[in-house]
């Protein structure tokens, strides 16, 4: 029985009808459809990628990146007023005194905390929700690492920098690709179960824009497997790592020299602010998917609100490539309940093909993500070859049943159990029927500029993972973010520990003067105080309910705020 509405059946029949011919081509191993030239890529990107639309970017008027064009929504957030009044806080008696403060406990933060503990130092690991609740947990398809003989780090380097449109910082790509095999081994030592054959040879699959099979995987729970192991390891160091959950940082704290020396945490439940003093600070708060840039649905975790970016900018760290947003080509667009749900690129890596409502394969399935996404948008909009959903959305088919036809029955179930499970919950069997997909907001390509030690332009502040910028240029390839947070999370932990050791015994005098200065700059620039940042969680409450709230009055304490 079909999991799709009656009116979609005509199109589904067409997909079925063209499948044998498409299968034939795929089996022959030829390019199922010609790859685009760089000129063709440029054409589809400039015409259809959301980043290239006229209102996508605008120059920022304040801060260290003043005058630079950034994604409009990001500019609005960075030009928002600080959410706290510096005068309200006594910073002279910190609630926590530690060697390293790590803000954000996703993959990068956990990896860093483990390194700090291994160096014999203490850390506070503060996080908005629970340890491990992050985009890292959600990555499905895999991690790139050049571990097999047909491949090597130099080939990986070329793929990554080409995919990033040659804007990547070369030394960061070098660190990423050269550390790859070491990280694969390191994670194995911690107990990560890579997919392997009986000889121990790691399975490798293709990803968009890769010239070799390079994707290591743990079924399609790659991120979950790595993250739950890292989280477990973090919890194996209770003497060294102090975990502070449900307590996002809201501003960094600087010392007399203007170097990062701690942060102000906000306990979302008790509404209490606490002061953490540290000798190094690592920012690992992840990205900005929950800002829903240009109204796109997102694959991102609930907490991905760009808070780390805002705090770092307030404190004076420089950002890089904040004009570039990654839209994942294959987000679910039907059923409505899982709108934006990430459908791993591994589906295409295994041979799944994007086809339009006529059942035609309209683009090479594994172009770099931005090109693939722009092609889907072109097919769905200008060409009118998409399939409409009952909710009025549009998408193209991702023909998954091909995978079993290519690699044998049962392949989908064993290699993509999460995908099968997700769609089964809503009555769709992806081993028999395709999925309906449309690009979804996926990744913050840019971020806080770092060097190979993850040092930012603000002394004392390190950054790792999605919150950082430069590793991926203006477009990240599949599997390079999982590698990124491992490589740079590890480097951040080591570098931050080194700095903390060198500063042992120093007790900084903490200050929020930079927040005062930021506010003044906003006022001097004539920017009105209409919004505040960082924002901690997205607003999804029904506007009809919010209309009935009484603003500025707290009935529990009987006071106007």
């Amino acid at each position, binding site marked *: 029985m079909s999991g799709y509405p009656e009116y979609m059946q005509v199109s589904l029949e067409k997909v079925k009808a063209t499948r044998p011919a498409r299968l034939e081509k795929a089996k022959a191993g030829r390019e199922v459809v010609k790859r685009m030239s760089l000129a063709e890529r440029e054409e589809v990107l400039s015409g259809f990628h959301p980043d290239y639309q006229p209102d996508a970017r605008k120059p920022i008027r304040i801060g260290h990146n003043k005058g630079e064009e950034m994604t409009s929504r990001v500019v609005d957030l960075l030009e928002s007023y600080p959410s706290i009044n510096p005068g309200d806080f006594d910073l002279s008696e910190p609630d926590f005194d530690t060697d390293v403060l790590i803000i954000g406990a996703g993959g990068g933060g956990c990896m860093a905390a483990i390194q700090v503990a291994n160096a014999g130092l203490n850390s506070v690991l503060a996080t908005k929700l629970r340890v491990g609740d992050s985009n890292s947990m959600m990555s499905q398809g895999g991690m790139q690492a050049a571990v097999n003989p047909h491949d090597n780090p130099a080939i990986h380097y070329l793929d990554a920098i080409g995919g990033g449109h040659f804007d990547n910082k070369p030394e960061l790509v070098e660190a990423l690709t050269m550390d790859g095999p070491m990280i694969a081994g390191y994670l194995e030592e*911690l107990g990560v179960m890579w997919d392997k054959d009986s000889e*121990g040879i790691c399975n490798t699959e293709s990803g968009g824009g890769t010239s070799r099979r390079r994707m290591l995987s743990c079924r399609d729970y790659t991120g979950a497997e790595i993250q739950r192991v890292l989280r477990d390891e973090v919890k194996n160091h209770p003497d060294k790592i102090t975990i502070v959950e449900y307590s996002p940082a809201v501003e960094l704290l600087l010392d007399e020299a203007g170097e990062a020396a701690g942060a102000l945490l906000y306990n979302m439940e008790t509404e209490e602010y606490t002061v953490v003093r540290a000798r190094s600070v690592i920012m690992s708060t992840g990205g900005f998917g929950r800002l829903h840039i240009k109204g796109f649905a997102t694959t991102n975790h609930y907490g991905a609100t760009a808070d780390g970016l805002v705090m770092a900018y307030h404190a004076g760290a420089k950002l890089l490539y904040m004009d570039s947003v990654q839209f994942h080509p294959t987000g679910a667009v039907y059923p409505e309940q899982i709108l934006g749900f990430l459908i791993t690129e591994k589906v295409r890596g295994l041979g799944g093909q994007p086809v339009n409502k006529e059942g035609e394969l309209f683009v090479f399935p594994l172009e770099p993500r931005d090109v693939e996404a722009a092609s889907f948008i072109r097919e769905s909009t200008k060409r009118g070859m998409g399939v409409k959903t009952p909710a009025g959305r549009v998408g193209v088919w991702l023909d998954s049943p091909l995978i079993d036809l290519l690699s044998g029955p049962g392949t989908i179930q064993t290699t993509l159990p999460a995908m099968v499970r997700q769609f089964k919950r809503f009555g769709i069997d992806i081993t028999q029927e395709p999925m309906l997909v449309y690009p979804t907001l996926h990744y913050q390509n840019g971020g806080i500029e770092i060097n190979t030690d993850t040092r930012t332009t603000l002394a004392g502040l390190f950054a790792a993972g999605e919150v950082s910028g430069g590793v991926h240029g203006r477009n990240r390839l599949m599997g390079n973010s999982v590698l990124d947070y491992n490589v740079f999370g590890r480097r951040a932990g080591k570098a931050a520990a080194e700095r903390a050791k060198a500063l042992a015994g120093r007790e900084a005098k903490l200050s929020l003067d930079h927040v005062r200065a930021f506010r003044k700059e906003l006022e001097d620039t004539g920017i009105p105080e209409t919004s505040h940042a960082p924002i901690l969680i997205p607003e999804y409450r029904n506007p009809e309910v919010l209309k009935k709230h009484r603003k500025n009055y707290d009935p529990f304490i009987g006071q106007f705020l």
Partner: protein
Amino acid sequence: MDEKEVEVKAPEPEAQAGPAYPDDKPKENLIPVFIYGKRFFVPESFTIITAMEYVGFQFKKAIGCREGFCGACATIYRLEGDYKLRTGLACQTVVEPNMYLVQIPFTPAVKAVYDISKLKPELASIQRYYPEVFRCVACNSCTKACPQEIEVMDYIQEIKRGNLAKAADLSFDCIMCGLCAVRCPAEMVQYNIALLARRLTGRYLLPRSAHLAERLAEQKEGRYEKEIEKLKGLSREELTKRYTERDLDFKVF
């Protein structure tokens, strides 16, 4: 909506089934659900998470990825007239009429502290940290509770037999939501036990890749450093050329 108008409106037949809630406003295509015991009317196609947001809840816990991967939104519920206690992830479960639900944002659970490098991949390691594994009465409540449809009881049995690799395989899709542990009459924390079994398997029992060892040895000797140094020195034009002309090789290893 005008408040007066609501007050004079007669209750819908459905609304008469439970106690009277004067603030309830039955509307078309909305169904009653009981969130922490209080009735609300929500759109029928919504998930528990989106339904709760629809009526005005703002989540600060018991929420995470919203895609079924993180296990933060474990929920237990009953349907009216049915004795069965059901479980699900709030982000993946569509509301049903007269569903009585409560979220379980946290499972009181023991997490043993160990040094994985000092353990052996054998039953004794698990027994040392989680001796309660032998309290299992094979009631299968854990399996029935699992929103991932994992054969939880089966992997516990495999662990008891010392088949850690088999347990690792069976438990692999676990998202650690804690519902198995909540339902277990033997008071085990299955998901932490399985995690230890998987870590022991990944580190000690799966065969190691000879290719990875060779690659690491190569790199130790500085292989690829020169090549990457050369790539780093190329102009944008030269690099673009190298990239466009690079060979594509999709051999399987």
